[in-house]
């Protein structure tokens, strides 16, 4: 049984930051991830990292912008922590090799994104996530951090209220293994595949959210689902919103501009306006010029050509809103700590409270960098004060028996793929950009029905090696948990706030104090509670 002081589950930006922080703290740390770290969804993050670097900007101003965007649901202590720390974290990333774009003075260049009152987003062309991921991975190689790749964590081992490690399935062999650790950091990424169309990678299945949910933890603000306005029409790719600040023009189907670039709106407003536009929209780069396109849109230039057949310097790119990310996640404090001792979470699977009801563009990657580091440090500190406990011998045989039972189910009727498609279509149709009670009721009914069908679904392929159907089975279980939480929270929130827009309740409920939704796994399905928003500053 592999034993570590700290086990990081997930190899994206938050996971690698956590791993490095734990390593620097001097504990024995390892990574466990479903894909090779460089195949993580972080590689697709294109907007950049936000921080105030002085001049006419300040971390307080960044915090104010974040809180304004969050529409009353930001945890102010978490926002403060992120906005204070972001500049130091970004400088550190610069020192270890992220090739951030430079201005004429050779200093960090910045672009302007919607909702920001200052140009504070540093970027590495439109591949910031890719560049940060690669740089952190280089440092993990340097530190010789053990990495278990193509392993899926199937459950958390929690005994006496303490996390003891995880059980995991090796995708390549079908072997099950218990990984014992004094502290576990979940950094498994988002759950974008709960919708279609979305910008999600294949791996974004809410794995960590589900692990925590099944371990009794609450998922916070799950109804807050953000769309990206500049998605490709037929692929998961999207253009960086940095394009709008750089002078790309958003046009209607007649080629008429539909956005003033000197007053960029927040994503939710832009998405709703684009979704209601007849005959779609285009993003026109022609005024930017080929050289600048090449320097700042390295990825998009290639992707538009390969996947949309568009040469950006000669034709506009058709775009449409695509579901982008669930803003909520596993409830944590600003150290990534959860209510289970020894269990931490960071990155897109976590909710430290910075996004509230609408994430400011660029804050998601920033939060992964800042809170990934903090979670790794806190996990290391926790591990230093405790010793790994062996996982009970019964844990693995129990899981093997469960697996055998799944393999022995009859295979007539549903497949995991048909259920997954039905789920993603249901969510897009009824729990999308604009919601109402009837649609949410229908979604709740569908998700419950799909949950019931999931408990009966059989697997047609029984091989052990790279059994994708088995992997999908586990991922679908997680997606159903996430969908249940989203629908439950969206039904309860009878107001419009941030990205949660209800046509039957079109304004925010100002009569009541803003609240967080918190969905836990009850005996009869998702159970909803609310908690007040921490609108005070940290000490």
């Amino acid at each position: 049984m592999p034993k570590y002081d700290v086990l990081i589950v997930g190899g994206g930006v938050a996971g690698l930051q956590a791993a490095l922080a734990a390593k620097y703290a001097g504990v024995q740390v390892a990574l466990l991830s479903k894909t090779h770290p460089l195949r993580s969804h972080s590689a697709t993050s294109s907007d950049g990292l936000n921080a105030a670097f002085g001049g006419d900007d300040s971390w307080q101003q960044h915090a104010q912008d974040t809180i304004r965007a969050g529409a009353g649901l930001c945890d102010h202590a978490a926002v403060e922590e992120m906005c204070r720390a972001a500049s130091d974290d970004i400088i550190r990333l610069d020192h270890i090799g992220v090739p951030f774009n430079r201005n004429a003075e050779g200093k960090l260049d910045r672009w302007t994104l919607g909702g920001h009152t200052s140009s504070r987003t540093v970027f590495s062309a439109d591949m910031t996530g890719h560049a940060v991921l690669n740089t952190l991975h280089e440092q993990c190689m340097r530190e010789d951090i053990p990495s278990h790749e193509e392993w899926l964590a199937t459950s958390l081992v929690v005994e006496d209220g303490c996390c003891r490690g995880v059980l995991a399935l090796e995708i390549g062999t079908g072997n099950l293994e218990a990984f014992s650790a004094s502290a576990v950091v979940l950094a498994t990424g988002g759950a974008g595949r709960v919708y279609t169309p979305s910008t999600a990678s294949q791996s974004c299945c809410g794995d960590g959210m589900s692990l925590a949910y099944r371990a009794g933890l609450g998922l916070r603000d799950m109804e807050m689902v953000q769309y990206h306005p500049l998605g490709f029409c037929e692929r998961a790719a999207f253009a960086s919103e940095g394009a709008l600040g750089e002078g790309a023009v958003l046009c209607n189907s007649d080629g008429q501009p539909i956005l003033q670039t000197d007053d960029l709106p927040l994503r939710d407003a832009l998405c709703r306006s684009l979704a209601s536009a007849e005959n779609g929209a285009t993003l026109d780069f022609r005024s930017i010029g080929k050289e600048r396109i090449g320097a700042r849109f390295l990825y998009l230039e290639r992707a538009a050509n390969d996947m949309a057949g568009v040469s950006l310097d000669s034709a506009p790119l058709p775009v449409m809103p695509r579901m982008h990310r669930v803003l909520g996640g596993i409830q944590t404090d600003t150290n990534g700590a959860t209510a289970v001792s020894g269990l931490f979470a960071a990155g897109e699977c976590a909710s430290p409270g910075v996004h509230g009801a609408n994430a400011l563009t660029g804050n998601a990657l920033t939060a992964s960098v800042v809170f990934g580091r903090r979670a790794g440090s806190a996990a290391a500190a926790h591990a230093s004060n405790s010793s790994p406990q062996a996982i009970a011998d019964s844990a693995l045989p129990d899981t093997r028996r469960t697996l055998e039972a799944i393999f022995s189910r009859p295979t007539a009727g549903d497949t995991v793929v048909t259920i997954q498609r039905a789920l993603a279509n249901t969510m897009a149709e009824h729990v999308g950009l604009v919601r109402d009670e009837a649609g949410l009721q229908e979604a709740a009914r569908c998700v419950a029905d799909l949950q019931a069908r999931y408990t009966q679904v059989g697997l047609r392929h029984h091989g052990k090696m790279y059994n994708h159907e088995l992997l999908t089975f586990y991922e679908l279980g997680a997606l159903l948990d996430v969908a249940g939480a989203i629908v439950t929270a969206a039904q309860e929130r009878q107001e419009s706030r941030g990205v949660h827009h209800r046509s039957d309740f079109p304004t925010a409920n100002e009569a009541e104090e803003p609240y967080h939704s918190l969905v836990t796994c009850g005996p009869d399905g998702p159970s909803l509670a609310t908690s007040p928003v921490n609108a005070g500053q940290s000490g």
Partner: protein
Amino acid sequence: METTFKVYRFDPENGSKPDFATYQVDLPDSATVMDGLRQIRDEQDPSLAFRASCERGSCGDCALRINKKGRLGCSLKIAKTVKNGVVTVEPIRNIPVLKDLVYDLEGFLWKKIKSVQPWITPREPEPEGEYVVAEEQLAEVRKAMSCVMCGLCDEGCAVIKIDKDFVGPAALTKAYRAVFDPRDGQHDERLTLVSEPGGVWDCTHCFEANGHCPLGLEPTDRLFEVRDEAIRQGIRSGTRNPKVQRHYDSFLNSVKRSGWLDEGRLAIESEGLTNVAGLAKLLPTVIRAIPKGKAPLPYFHHKRPGAEAIRRIIDKAQRSEV
């Protein structure tokens, strides 16, 4: 669009030999090869194994050999590659296949990337803020770093095909990223590292890597630039390998003396004049070469016309190095 997919199948679990299976798919014109594979797996044969992650050419996970060319499956439309209604999909070459289209990148790519130590050590003195660096310097680093580690340049490499120890163009493009990053404090150490046998000097200039890179990053050119930088910095190949050093010294001294290569002298001096065991290993070759007139007497190498001019050029170059 109806298309026939011929897909490489290999499942070590059932003991069968590798073979191709044929599937019919019907997809819109905009569909990619990856869409086709997914339709096969989701609707026809759930046992089919392949890797795919980002679905947009950002992560390099889906590198495959499609109609005999290395491509990213998620970025290649069926309509662009289909020939006579058929798309043939195989794993990339020169690599152990684990199952169907899934192959083992550990030894082929990841270990080699780590071997060039492509991590930045902040150059001293480390500034309080960001490093002040010209955009032009970082632009090329950024471009090299946009590599998605798909391994297709290594797949096309003519050297790796016969020498698995060559670190290859992917790892050396990663090395380029560190060598040319002005913020790095280990510039010369890394150049020394990649100048060792198996590194930049083992490339044979076939330019296949350039032709195989789906992102147009020109890995061969990057590798050449690392070589040029090593020369500029006076870093010689094989500084950690005395035999390689002797080989270089002998080569140079031979050309400097006679204007061309004294092969006999090179063989002896490379092994080392006091290395009896090494010299003994040469004997069978010498014995085979003598009857064929291919074993010229070492050190009695006559000068070629213009040898004096060549010597002067070398002298001048050596003076400028100093």
